[in-house]
């Protein structure tokens, strides 16, 4: 089922945050949306998940029109959003945090227990820490918890906002592996937004580059990683070149 965003225009007060953005994510794809801070990446996810209202344009999942749905209806339609900064409920235990993700289905106790089991299988560290307050988890563990909570809603599409932010390189790698697993094992479709373009493009099939609210480049992850504009602006390639003297 294809997530399709067409000609999306979003204002933040007087600021034109997204300017006619068209993009799509095919079923089972991992697509990265990269760009500098303030390019409009978070706005994009917030609009898809119904938190912000577009001035114009449409968001569709398969045949289903999501554009004017409330956030909870978007979740019910199969899209879960893992926000920037993870937003776990620090005083609550890991398991209670996860149960919050199944809030919509609180009557189905058996199903919820199964889902918890599934998530613990995917993130064994969460099982170990199930009784601990979420606030005591490391950054990487909190990211796993945030992803696990989103999975409790049984989504088909996962929207990830800056999953690598503030994490050590090794932990970033672990999170990236988990994202790939979500696609492989749970068949999820993923739209991931990242300032860390190298990390996102390492696991993505395709990518879009957002600049000042406009898409300026679109290609396979490999094409974007090899693009000099992308390298200069988002991969820090210039500095490496200067150091090794290989720059022209």
């Amino acid at each position: 089922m294809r997530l399709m965003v067409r000609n999306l225009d979003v204002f933040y007060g007087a600021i034109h945050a997204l300017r006619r953005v068209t993009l799509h994510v095919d079923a089972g794809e991992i697509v990265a949306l990269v760009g500098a801070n303030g390019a409009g990446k978070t706005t994009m996810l917030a609009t898809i998940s119904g938190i912000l209202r577009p001035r114009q344009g449409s968001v569709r999942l398969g045949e289903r029109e999501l554009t004017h749905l409330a956030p909870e209806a978007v979740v019910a339609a199969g899209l879960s959003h893992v926000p920037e900064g993870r937003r776990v409920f620090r005083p609550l235990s890991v398991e209670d945090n996860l149960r919050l993700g199944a809030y919509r289905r609180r009557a189905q106790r058996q199903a919820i227990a199964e889902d918890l089991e599934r998530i613990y299988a995917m993130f064994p560290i969460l099982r170990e820490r199930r009784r601990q307050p979420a606030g005591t988890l490391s950054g990487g563990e909190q990211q796993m918890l945030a992803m696990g909570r989103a999975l409790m809603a049984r989504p088909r599409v996962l929207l990830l906002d800056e999953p690598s932010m503030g994490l050590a390189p090794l932990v970033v790698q672990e999170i990236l592996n988990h994202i790939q697993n979500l696609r492989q094992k749970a068949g999820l479709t993923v739209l991931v937004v990242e300032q860390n373009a190298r990390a996102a493009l390492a696991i993505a099939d395709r990518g879009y580059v957002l600049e000042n609210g406009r898409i300026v480049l679109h290609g396979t992850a490999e094409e974007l990683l090899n693009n000099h504009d992308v390298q200069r602006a988002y991969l820090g390639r210039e500095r490496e070149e200067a150091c090794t003297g290989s720059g022209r």
Partner: protein
Amino acid sequence: MYWQREIECMDRETLELLQLERLQATLNRVVRNVPLYRQRFRELGIDPYDIQRLEDIRHLPFTTKDDVRQNYPYGMFAVPLRDVVRMHTSSGFTGTPTVVGYTAGDLRRWADLAARMLTAAGVTQDDVVQMACPYDLMSGAFGLHSGAERIGASVIPSALADPRRQIRIMQDYRTTALVCTPSYALHLADTLDALAANKTSLSLRFAILGSEPWTEAMREEIEERLGVAATDHYGLSEITAVAGECLERRGLHLHEDAVLAEIIDPISGAPLPLGERGELVLTTLTKEAFPLVRYRTGDLTAIDPTPCPCGRTFRRLARIPGRSDDMIIVGGVNVFPAQVAAILAEAGLGQVRHQIVLEREEHMDQAIVLLEAPESFCTDSIKKSQRLMENVRLRLRTELSVAFAVRLVEPRSLPPGAPVVDDRRSR
């Protein structure tokens, strides 16, 4: 056989979505990086932001060969020179040269387009591909060369070796695929005759021909004399590869994921409905170094939207019989020299050397076709020759709506390569 099946057989809805995404990104980039587009769009009050559907492209201004010339050398480049890894320059017969730059990514994508086209034309990794092309004048040769290597074929850049050596290379290395111009393919067939050899001494299976207009009659002759399946391809140095035929040989599949094609009325500039004949206008969708928006190719063709039995979903260009700037207008009627050549060939005269002469008498256009008398006229009965001439006159008049006078001249008396002499202005 496909090179990139998932792209070549993409459903139209996905393709059009992809085209829109790439068009919008291209417009955002040209406005940011190419002064010509930034200024022109600003003057016309156009914001690429207003392009919401593919059809909206009709509101954008054209880019012409003159724009490219006037911004020579680097004005149209959309990336800094340090990102450009190759440049092709053409001296241009009409004066100011042009130059086109490519990033490493552009070259990779170009090679893929060529690989797709070669695969559609029958070439596989088991083929020996002989490139009998002028690499210095024909940038397309580089694309096809890289494409053939990408496929894994064995490539022989025989370039401008003389025809006898070309034949020798074909025989010694058992060349299976020949890349050249159609007229050169016929020249090689003549050389083969002159060497008293025949096609069975060759291992050729495919001929991938392009870079000049040619006719179905030429195709038949090439296929017969060289024992090949001959396919046509089309590209422009300003754009790179644009379209290529599959083995169905029913028109050239456009690389629609890389170029957006429109057909316009060459006089008014208005878009024409799908299927109608007019000038081809192209917008690049993936080029980084040298993107072009609504570039007027000067080539006249039509887009055929009917499905192709080969399974590719990309629409097909009709064979291109001539350029709009070759077009001659006789008494208000548009005629392409290649149409005249096709009629002569179909009437049974083969590739007879001829010339179209235009004169004006008392404000009336007179059109004459001078024909070198074919040798058969010496042996055939007078009546048969007269019937043939009458048939040619009739077909020219009915098919082209121009009453051409047809006159015979001495064999080998017409200069080669000057199909049209227009004396109307010199009087």
